[in-house]
């Protein structure tokens, strides 16, 4: 049976501190104390937030405070207590709540006879050093997802995290085998359901999440606009999230696609964008790939995320649609609750509206 979870995501600066401690550590401590289902900390390579400060790993002096994304998965029934603690931390950045389901091996049916949307998105959390047979698990998983004909998969490396109550921080001189990584994949429902069964067969104890995503574009083809919200949903203050999965070496008029997306959205006054560079993955029919030794261009996937109000998402989608005329898998998701934090005022309450979404 699948289990309802809430995904609490915070976007902030790697160097942000609260009471002389790193915010990322503070949040992970709270997550450990509240015994969350699992947590992961991801480091982005490019981004800007509400104040439009750009951070990038392309220039040395602007790369010392890159954006980070801290995700916690928590039981739906106990999320109130967690949020109370998390929102009490005065800080800047963005916090969102999303719904997700953890799928067990017998949820194949739930995926296949789902409702309206034809595509499904799965997120798989495994240890960095976990192996399937004699290969790294993420390589074996990507091969399998590619063979099953999914639209794409991106492997995002965690730098810290929690699993089964245990803290797993990446260290310089360490194998870091237990530090979590996250594989996001999107595809038609049938093969995704087959992938679920297969994943449970080959992995020891994976976290497999199902999230509700709509595939808007694939390989330059427009499939759907981000869903227009109903009046009720607008009143409930729902936000939307667009994610563009693209190869690092994809170009738009000779310039890297993911950088163009960040640049154009920044000049369009979008609220914020975060670019996460993966280590392995695939897009469409091109076989899974990653970096090679002595290369000039990188061959890893990039996931570029923007979260905003429905009006601004509609505008951002026009820009993204124009830029992804050849490459890119674009998905849209509903974000039931979001709050921008300014570091001074208390964040107040944040809850999932049970009627909406």
């Amino acid at each position, binding site marked *: 049976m699948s289990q309802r979870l809430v995904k609490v995501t915070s976007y902030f600066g790697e160097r942000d501190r609260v009471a002389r401690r790193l915010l990322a550590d503070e949040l992970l401590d709270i997550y450990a104390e509240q015994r969350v289902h699992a947590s992961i900390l991801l480091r982005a390579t490019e981004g800007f937030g509400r104040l439009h*400060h*750009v951070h990038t*790993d*392309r*220039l*040395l*002096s*602007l790369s010392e405070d890159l954006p980070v994304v801290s995700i916690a998965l928590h039981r739906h029934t106990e999320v109130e207590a967690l949020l109370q603690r998390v929102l009490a931390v005065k800080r800047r950045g963005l916090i969102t709540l999303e719904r997700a389901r953890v799928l067990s091996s017998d949820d194949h049916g739930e995926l296949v006879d789902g409702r309206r949307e034809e595509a499904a998105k799965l997120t798989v959390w495994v240890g960095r050093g976990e192996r399937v047979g004699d290969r790294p698990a993420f390589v074996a998983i990507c091969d399998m997802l590619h063979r099953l004909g999914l639209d794409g998969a991106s492997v995002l490396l965690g730098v810290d995290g929690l699993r089964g109550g245990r803290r797993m921080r990446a260290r310089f001189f360490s194998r870091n085998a237990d530090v979590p990584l996250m594989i996001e994949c999107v595809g038609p429902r049938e093969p995704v359901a087959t992938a679920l069964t297969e994943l449970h067969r080959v992995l020891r104890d994976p976290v497999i999440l199902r999230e509700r995503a709509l595939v808007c574009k694939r390989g330059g083809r427009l499939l759907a606009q981000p869903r227009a919200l109903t009046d009720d949903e607008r009143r409930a203050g729902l936000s939307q999230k667009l994610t563009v999965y693209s190869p690092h*070496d994809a*170009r738009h008029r*000779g*310039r*890297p696609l993911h*950088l163009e997306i960040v640049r154009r959205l920044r000049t369009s006054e979008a609220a914020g964008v975060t670019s996460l560079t993966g280590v392995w993955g695939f897009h469409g029919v091109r076989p899974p790939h990653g970096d090679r030794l002595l290369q*000039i*261009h*990188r061959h890893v996937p990039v996931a570029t995320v923007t979260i905003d109000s429905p009006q601004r998402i509609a505008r951002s989608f026009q820009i993204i649609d124009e830029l992804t005329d050849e490459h890119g898998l674009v998905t849209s998701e509903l974000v039931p609750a979001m709050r921008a934090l300014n570091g001074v005022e208390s964040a107040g309450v944040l809850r999932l509206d049970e009627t909406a979404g």
Partner: protein
Amino acid sequence: MSGWTWLAVALLGGAGASARFLLDALISARARGDFPLGTLAVNTSGSLLLGLLAGLSVTADALVLAGTATLGSYTTFSTWMLETQRLAEDARARVAAANVLLSLLVGVGAAALGRSIGAHV
């Protein structure tokens, strides 16, 4: 060199690196486009000042402290190279080439200018 000189090298080296970080970050945060202007500004101004020191015929401990320690840690070869590599990675081949050539030309020019200013003071 005395122990005090070593201590001063350490302190001035730190000050040079801090000055670079501040100036580079200030310029990079305001610059539009992909060109690493911050690093160019740092390296050019450092070359000008080092040329000036040479033109003024500064020697011995003073040269070690102002030249090697302060300007040596202020300017940066490694950042210049890394940012050029990142530009090539992002398919900005022309910008990468311009970053190498422009830095060379402007850098040598700045050092020569500094030297002749120093020699005529």
